[in-house]
């Protein structure tokens, strides 16, 4: 546990490594990463541990965002921190409502149903104009303040969001170590067997679904107070797919997998964009560049899934294992040769 705590603190320090100047734009990017990470950590529990698929999690993210935005802009006295909690709670409630019927489905069918739900949510965000501002969205969302402390700069928000994520991670670790967690892993490998053994699969699935929805709602609410402007375009199917991709690329079934995935996929476009500086001779044409970035992104997705299907966390440790085995093999052969050579 001590080792775990020590490790948990490293991410905070790592942000300060490049140079002596804290790059504010990176802080900005890290806040976005953090906000998405809330949703991804929750989704990882659902997908990685419980083995259920959701292609509609952007809806919960959006519900959290809209809840706090509507409450705080229509009623100016409404405390923003309460708005965030309301966002998480409402997202969880919706998760409970839709989860019950939908979780009876399996595999591909569950994926399709959640996709449909996500799209319906998006349409509602657009159509219920009186509440959500329709396609224009909601402007002038007040910055987050907790007991008088105002989080109006990127830096302050950055610390806040990563503390929140640590809390979410602790909650997740607790869940995994508990009986519910073990039951989830059982149902992941074989739902029928788990059922037969008396694991309350239906209830556990619903619980994880609600939890992941609430985490996503929390992230969305934080996002609303960070960007101070939301519209339905921020909560499309593309975002749901991004979340799932982050979970899968990072490593399912690994508590850090979600974080790894979020970091990789948020920084990937920036790293790709920075490539021409590092590799001379790469096409520099500014007008072509953003296209070629998406091409690379799609190709990388395909390649990642082909060669590291369990995610980066596992892929890298497998690579490390492989080199270790080859090294040992090499040493053994050396020893054998020496003995024979005599």
């Amino acid at each position: 546990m001590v080792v775990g705590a020590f490790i948990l603190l490293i991410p905070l320090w790592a942000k300060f490594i490049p140079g002596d100047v804290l790059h504010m734009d990176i802080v900005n990017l890290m806040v976005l990463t953090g906000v998405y990470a809330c949703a991804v950590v929750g989704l990882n529990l659902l997908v990685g541990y419980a083995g259920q698929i959701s292609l509609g999690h952007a809806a919960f993210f959006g519900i959290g965002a809209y809840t706090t935005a509507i409450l705080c802009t229509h009623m100016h006295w409404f405390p923003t921190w309460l708005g965030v909690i309301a966002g998480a709670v409402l997202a969880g409630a919706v998760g409970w409502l839709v989860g019950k019927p939908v979780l009876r489905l399996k595999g591909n069918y569950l994926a399709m149903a959640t996709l449909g739900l996500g799209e319906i949510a998006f349409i509602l965000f657009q159509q219920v104009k009186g509440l959500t501002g329709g396609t224009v969205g909601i402007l002038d969302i007040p910055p987050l303040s907790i007991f008088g402390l105002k989080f109006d700069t990127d830096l302050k928000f950055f610390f806040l969001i990563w503390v929140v994520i640590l809390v979410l991670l602790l909650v997740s670790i607790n869940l995994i170590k508990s009986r519910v967690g073990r039951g989830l892993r059982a149902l992941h490998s074989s739902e029928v067997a788990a059922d037969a053994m008396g694991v309350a699969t239906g209830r556990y699935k619903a619980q994880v679904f609600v939890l992941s929805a609430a985490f996503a709602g929390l992230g969305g609410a934080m996002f609303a107070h960070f960007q101070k402007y939301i519209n339905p375009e921020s909560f499309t199917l593309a975002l749901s797919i991004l979340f799932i991709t982050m979970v899968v690329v990072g490593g399912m079934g690994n508590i850090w997998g979600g974080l790894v995935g979020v970091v990789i996929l948020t920084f990937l476009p920036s790293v790709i964009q920075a490539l021409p500086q590092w590799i001379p001779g790469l096409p520099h044409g500014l007008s072509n560049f953003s296209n070629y970035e998406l091409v690379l992104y799609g190709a990388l997705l395909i390649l990642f899934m082909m060669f590291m299907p369990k995610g980066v966390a596992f892929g890298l440790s497998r690579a490390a294992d492989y080199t270790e085995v080859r090294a040992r093999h090499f040493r053994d052969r050396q020893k054998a040769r020496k003995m024979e050579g005599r």
Partner: protein
Amino acid sequence: MNTGDSKQRKLLWGSVAVVALVVIATLIDKGSIGLQLILSGLTVGSIYALVAMGFSIIYSSTRVINFAQGGFSMLGGMLMYSLAVSGKLPMWLAFILAVLIVTALGAGFERVVIRPMKDHSVITVIIVTIGLSIFMTAVAKWIWGTDPVKIASFSGDKPLRLFGASLVPQSLWVFGLTLVAVALVFLFFNRTLLGKGMRAAADNPDAASLVGVSSSTSSLVAWTLAAGLGAAAGVVIAPINFAQYSAGTALGLKGFSAAVLGGLGSAPGAVVGGLVLGVLETITAGYLPSGYKDAVAFVILILVLLVRPQGLLGRPEEVKV
């Protein structure tokens, strides 16, 4: 036969009755306007049907949902533009070339990416096809830019009149292709050894390979067929819809809902699903604020999944333990 089955059968006939009632009510309520709505719905619906068939073909042979199916149609349309309009080739030649190129791409993708991944989890394969969809859209944008492109209709634009409602001639081409495609696909999967073997390979790969149809062949043929059909659909649709680099996603989503409605794995089901979806959508736009039209596809999708996951014409899938 147990009570579950007869309940399902009641549901099936019940939904057929509901759809028929809605159509008849619209005709009575709105007269020739209603007929116009239905004709437009059938046009849009057959577009969905063509895309849905592609989904069905791949799913019935490999249990994979190909999120890039819409992309094949988009590429077909864009290639047709390049060959027939920019390249000034005769339409029939451009059509054949466009379909061949996309078919080759589909087959290539199956061999290089899908085949090596056959043992991976469902979700990994879904992400791969999503990656392909992103890749195809990005490459299309790179090559053709962002503007929609115009392809001349095959037999002109003079609208055909039918009892006060109208139809563009291109719609007939779309209907025609749909009919031909569903007939060919149905015959293939139900009357040829290869086709029947492919369906078997999805459920029981060992038995299928005993008959000479390995799951490897099955997968390749399925992807090839789906890509070719998708491309043909894209070409025929383009004069109505305007081909564009981003056309794949929207088409894919609707086609997918249609496939689920009709029954994933059934080609006639895809057609039925597509037509029903198109008509219901258009009728909804006729009565409700049109913004909710898109919601129809997804509400239907979810209802079907919850109540009768095998769709209207599909067979229930067995869960392997």
